[in-house]
């Protein structure tokens, strides 16, 4: 696997191997030396054209725990704002000597272009491109579900039959898209909940159930409820009348949270708007995996960096 650009290209065995590898990496917390020498001498470049402190730090942490060196580029105040193109920035950074590029960009397809255009030799890991894909987020979400459901016995397991409800601005969410592909690959059953104006075109062709009524979706006793952040621009773009109306119909309020079974996981990719899409009661409960998702993100990203690294000729 030379690049990781999205989750639709991941087969079931590949996905499980990544999750199992991540599980092994989580074990280093128990060790005296909480680091592995695996990618010593390898340089990982973080190319964050679109800002995101937490994802960037997560990749940085993952790379360092594998003993790799990290160089970071962020969009603000750089020559990019002076008009240097994606191609030139990436080639300039690669010219400093990198083997892996982690890329986040506001244009859908940016990571794909870097991987397939012939501009670069490095492996490319997509850290989020426009509204298209965010594969490491989907992987860490799946990892979190798996480890909460099976504990130590999670190795080699998929998510067969697990009922997942994803709520929010699905139309503009790369997290939702990547999760849908990966969860389907791992055998889960996915329901998407959103008002019609925030559902993607052609969603009826996806392997999901759609539901405009949140309460009806919850009546189906899901095993996981994943809340997505709602951006303010959507309110202004005539997608929705007001934040208040959105919250009352699609927010995980205290009442809705209380109606969930005790085993139902409450997930959120972060950062959350407390009191908007998710109530504090839900976010702070034992069922909430929000902080674990962050920790798990490091192991998963370690597994991804290890798996895409190629020395010399491609595998």
């Amino acid at each position, binding site marked *: *696997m030379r690049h990781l650009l999205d989750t639709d290209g991941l087969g079931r065995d590949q996905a499980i*191997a990544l999750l*199992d*590898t991540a599980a*092994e*990496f989580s*074990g280093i917390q128990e*060790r*005296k*030396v909480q*680091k*592995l*020498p*695996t*990618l010593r001498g*390898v340089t990982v470049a973080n190319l964050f054209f679109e800002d995101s402190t937490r994802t960037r730090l997560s990749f940085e942490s993952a790379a360092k725990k*594998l003993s790799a060196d990290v160089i970071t580029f962020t969009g603000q105040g750089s020559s990019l704002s002076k008009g240097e193109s994606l191609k030139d920035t990436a080639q300039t950074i690669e010219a400093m000597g990198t083997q892996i590029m982690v890329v986040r960009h506001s244009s859908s397809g940016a990571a794909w272009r870097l991987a397939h255009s012939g501009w670069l030799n490095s492996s490319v890991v997509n850290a989020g491109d426009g509204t298209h894909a965010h594969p490491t987020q989907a992987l860490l979400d799946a990892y979190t579900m798996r480890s909460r459901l099976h504990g130590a016995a999670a190795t080699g397991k998929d998510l067969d039959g697990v009922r997942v409800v994803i709520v929010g601005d699905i139309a503009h969410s790369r997290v939702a898209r990547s999760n849908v592909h990966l969860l389907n690959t791992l055998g889960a059953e996915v329901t998407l909940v959103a008002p019609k104006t925030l559902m993607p075109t052609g969603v009826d062709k996806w392997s999901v159930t759609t539901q405009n009524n949140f309460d009806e979706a919850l009546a189906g006793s899901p095993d996981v409820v994943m809340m997505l952040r709602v951006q303010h621009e959507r309110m202004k773009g005539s997608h929705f009348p007001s934040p208040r109306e959105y919250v009352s119909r699609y927010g995980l309020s205290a009442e809705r949270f209380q109606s969930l079974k005790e085993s139902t996981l409450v997930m959120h990719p972060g950062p959350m708007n407390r009191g908007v899409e998710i109530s504090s009661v839900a976010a702070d409960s034992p069922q909430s995996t929000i902080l674990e998702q962050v920790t798990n993100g490091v192991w998963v990203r370690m597994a991804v960096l*290890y*798996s895409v*690294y*190629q*020395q*010399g000729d491609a*595998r």
Partner: protein
Amino acid sequence: MAADYVLSESDITRTIKRMAHEIIEGTPDTSSLVLLGIPTRGAVLAERLADQISDITGADVPVGVLDVTMYRDDIGQGELRIPTPTTEPDGGIDDKVVVLVDDVLFSGRTVRAALDALIDLGRPRTVRLAVLVDRGHRDFPIRADFVGKNLPSATHEHVSVFLEESDGEEGVRVER
């Protein structure tokens, strides 16, 4: 099939018994003894050696598993290898006499990786190496302290160890 084996099932049993005696003889303070097997077959052998040793001394010997995948010197080449669990023996490895156990000693690269993995786990008092088969052709300055059988071989030959617990059969074979 039995005719192909260089070491038969009964040979292996005898050899392990002898190695157990040697390890005991070579370790003045057996109460500090721990065995660490390198997966997959080294871990199987470590269990067997531990059983033999405790049969002889009457005391349990802690056994652990040391995965070396992340410490290899060929990362990023060849097929992607998935790491397997590392488990520390009861009581850890700090200030212990650690005997690393593997099935075949060849270039020595695996043992080099195992030593690096071991140092990241803790600080043993002493480290020894026990192997079932030493087939020569070292690329690194590494030697085994306890050897089951010396099996001189040509580099192009393939020496394989089969154990019941991991392979469903018992024996050591050399393929030319």
